[in-house]
């Protein structure tokens, strides 16, 4: 169950980079705060991504690519393309993952004391960049072409999801690359391109399983 939750959150947490921050030759606390404010003022809403997942179950890294959309505080959509496509949509109340190849969907409730709640709440606050200083230990440094930020979760529940999240923010204050280290040693590296700040229609964050799709609720409810 924990692993299941972790995997879901990996997808969600990866979105942090789209709106987030940077690291460098050690910024002071006040500089980090200023940086976060500037990033918050320039939140992106969509991007293309390429992802490499180093999973202990597989001999080789699993590669995937696709698009992501995001709307504060807690809505997002993630489309994985290629031979094994998938679609992940959260409207803030529930999270759907749909696998077109298998015509199957998984539904995970948020809120109502769902096991996902505490960590999703933490990640949503990260996506909002509100109170992020309280949720993560942040170290940042200025590097060539942007900032490098390292986020280490403060809370035990977040620590169970990932150990560390490294982000590279470009000079335009847009996330370019994230690297997430998981407690079991798995690693997920995601690079982003074509980031934009265009408004996203609300229907983007809505999902209904297609007719005939098999729907599962692994966490019940």
């Amino acid at each position, binding site marked *: 169950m*924990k692993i299941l939750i972790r995997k879901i959150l990996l997808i969600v947490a990866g979105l942090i980079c789209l709106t987030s921050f940077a690291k460098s030759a050690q910024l002071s606390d006040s500089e980090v705060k200023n940086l976060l404010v500037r990033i918050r003022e320039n939140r992106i809403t969509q991007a293309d991504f390429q992802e490499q997942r180093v999973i202990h179950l597989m001999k080789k890294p699993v590669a995937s690519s696709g698009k992501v959309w995001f709307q504060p505080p807690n809505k997002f959509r993630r489309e994985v393309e290629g031979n094994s496509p998938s679609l992940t949509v959260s409207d803030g109340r529930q999270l759907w*993952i749909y696998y077109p190849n298998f015509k199957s969907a998984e539904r995970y409730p948020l809120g109502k004391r769902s096991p996902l709640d505490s960590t999703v709440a933490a990640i949503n606050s990260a996506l909002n960049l509100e109170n992020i200083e309280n949720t993560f230990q942040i170290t940042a440094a200025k590097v060539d072409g942007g900032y490098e930020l390292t986020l280490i979760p403060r809370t035990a529940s977040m620590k169970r999801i990932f150990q560390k999240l490294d982000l590279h923010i470009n000079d335009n204050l847009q996330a370019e690359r994230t690297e997430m280290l998981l407690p079991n040693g798995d690693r997920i590296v995601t690079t982003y391109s074509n980031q934009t700040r265009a408004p996203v229609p609300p229907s983007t964050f809505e999902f209904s399983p297609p007719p005939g799709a098999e729907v599962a609720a692994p966490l019940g409810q």
Partner: protein
Amino acid sequence: MRISEFIARTITQRSRLVWASLALLTGACLAILITSLRLDSEIFNVLPGRFSSVQGLKIYDREFEQTHELTFALLCTPQDVDKLENFAPVFAEKLRKQPWCTRVLAGSPMATPDGIRDLQSIAVPLLLNLEPSVFDETISILQAHKIQDRLHRLRQQIEGASPRSEFELSIDPLGLIAPALKPFAENTAIEQEQPLTSPDGTMRVFLAVTNQPAVSAFECQRLMRRVNEFRSTAVAGWDGGRLQVLITGRAAFVSEISLSMRYDIVATLLGSILLVSCIFFVGFQRWLPLVGMAICLLLSCLVALTLGQLLFGRLSMISVGFCAILVGLGVDFAIHLIGRYHQARSDGESHQQAIGTSIAKLGRAVFFGALTTAVGFAALVLSGAMSFSQLGVLIAIGIFIAGLFMCSILFLFIRERETPMSHDWISDLVRKYVRRAVRRPAAILICSSAVLLLLTGIGFSPIPPLRFEASTRSLQPKNIRANQALEEIMHKMPVRWEPVLAIVHAANSQELHDAWQKLAAHWKELQTARKIKSFFTPVALCPSPNWMQRNRGNLSAINFQAARQALAQTLDAEGFNPDAFGPAFALLDDLQRVADPRVPLPNWREQLSKSSSWWFLVDRYFAQDPLLTTGFVTTNQPVSTHAQSQALKRDLPVEGVPVILSGWTYTLADLLPWSHRQLLIISALMAIFDVSLLAILYRDLRLWLIQIVTLAIGIGAMIASMKLLHINLNLLNVLSFRLVLAIGVDYGIYIVLVWQKTRDVEHDVAGVIKPVLLAGLTAVSGFASLALARNPSLTGLGIACALGIFWSLVATVFFTLPAIAAAEPKAWRENKCASR
């Protein structure tokens, strides 16, 4: 020689012999009590043992692990929620290290790698225990092509970033574990209904099983001393705001209640002694008879306790509360006898003569007073509850002994040469009142009747209602830390209503398994028919030797070598890392091994780690005896009515499966008719006995009717006061009705018997009204002092008794006397000498 004269002569002329006899009696009683006294702290003994639901509660309380469980909760301010989340594992680790702690549950076992590993370790026995058709379908997955298909599909889903597939491959690469654990996993849902973190995150709950060797009060106190030491240091390292450590559980309750009893005894005893002494001194201006009265009462308690111990072998802690009631009743006898003695001395009689007169004049009243009280309380035997039966018998024995001692050894404490009272203003006041009540009874009668009848009307009318808390929880001290912790936890955590327990005790594993199979199938139908909301049973963990043998036979038909080979080849072909799939190969090895009929069948109890958090779940279902189990049925609504309990009793059992339905709310609903009936029937029996006795004693219809009306309006006014003061009835203070009835009868007997025989109303009636008044006031203050107790049951009993006795006293003085004066008028001084 008359008995009164014999007693008077023995007391005055052979006092040394009497003292020696007393010393001998005391020594014998103490010796018996010291060597054989056994107190029973079983709270369930206040409930009638013949009900199977009560038996179930006792079994659950005695045999299941929860008696050794303590609940810890950390409560922080909303600002420190994140800090609490980080501190919770630190606290749990500290808790685990305590020498008195065996196991700790700090979160769902499914949320930890150890918890998942533990589940995997019991997969093989649970797989073998599957229903045969399900087992056959499950192991068919070991066919080579099915292994290939499954792994291929999972690999594709992982590429599509499916968290579920990655989870499945991590814990169940062959797809055998999930079906094996499915029946067990269904039961973990009960954990989801009882989360360990409050919705707002400010409270974290930890369950700890202790290694407490016994559940006695002293063991609980010893354990809680160590737990409280831990509490004082447990928050070291916390850097947030205020952090409360709340602790509750059986041991915490027993420890605090037993300690608060010590306070209650001291506080109420001192309060009672102080108040009674003051009133006694005001009335008689002497201390020594007060000491004598106290010693007589103590001796009565001691002898009654000794006889009770010899009779029952083991005395309930609640029944020991008879002392308070006995003191309240015994004081009456003493005050009347001392009052009559002083009256006789005032009339010029010698010490010995005055003792004889006092006993002769009041001995009959004391005997009948003791008889009515004894029978009234002995009727508690009919309640069926061991504690109440013992209480009734102890009071019955004690009150007779108190009457005997008051009519004899009390006079050892009255000096022969006592100075007369300087100014007896109470007697003067009483004499004036009696004169007025006898000469012009109508005015007093009209006033008192108006007030008392109004109160009686309120008392017996359905509005406002008098609430009866049938729950034994109403006896639970509310101001102790363990209860405050429990209330805080219940307030913070979203709790549902308590499920009904279904206890099954089987002779062997197969019988147990079959019983739960039948019950689970039946309850599934009830759930489908929406007669129950949900249910949880231990069926998945009850091994069926028959099924396991049969399934093992089918397992031997599997080609494990081929399965192993297919797995290895598919992993390689799909790009999986073979090192990550070691558990899958190990599972194949395990299955191949148990397929050998010469190998003993695996037992999940031996394979589940002793430190596993899953034991918390297992212990909910299994007692120390693995063949004693319980299931849980959650009803659509909380069980609060007898009709609901009857419907459950009708619906839940299955023919041929002996099951005991129980649980707190279920039992209390089941007992509702009993608790009301025992109040009504036993009280009615006592009332019938009392009125019959009074009829025989008075042989006068008008006086008898006046006495009955007095008792009725006394009780009516008492109920009205309880309603108006919002005092609820509970299982203990309901006894106050019997007590008030008994005391009310006593007061009436004293006055009516004197009235029937008197020739000098001033001398005789005023002479008895003063002791009645003093006895009433001492009894009221004595019982009111119980309000100082921390235990709400004692407080409730004390207040109810004080109210009842107060109104009985008022009714006797202001209604009975003017009423009998109006009904059977007497001249103020008819024949002074004759009456003496």
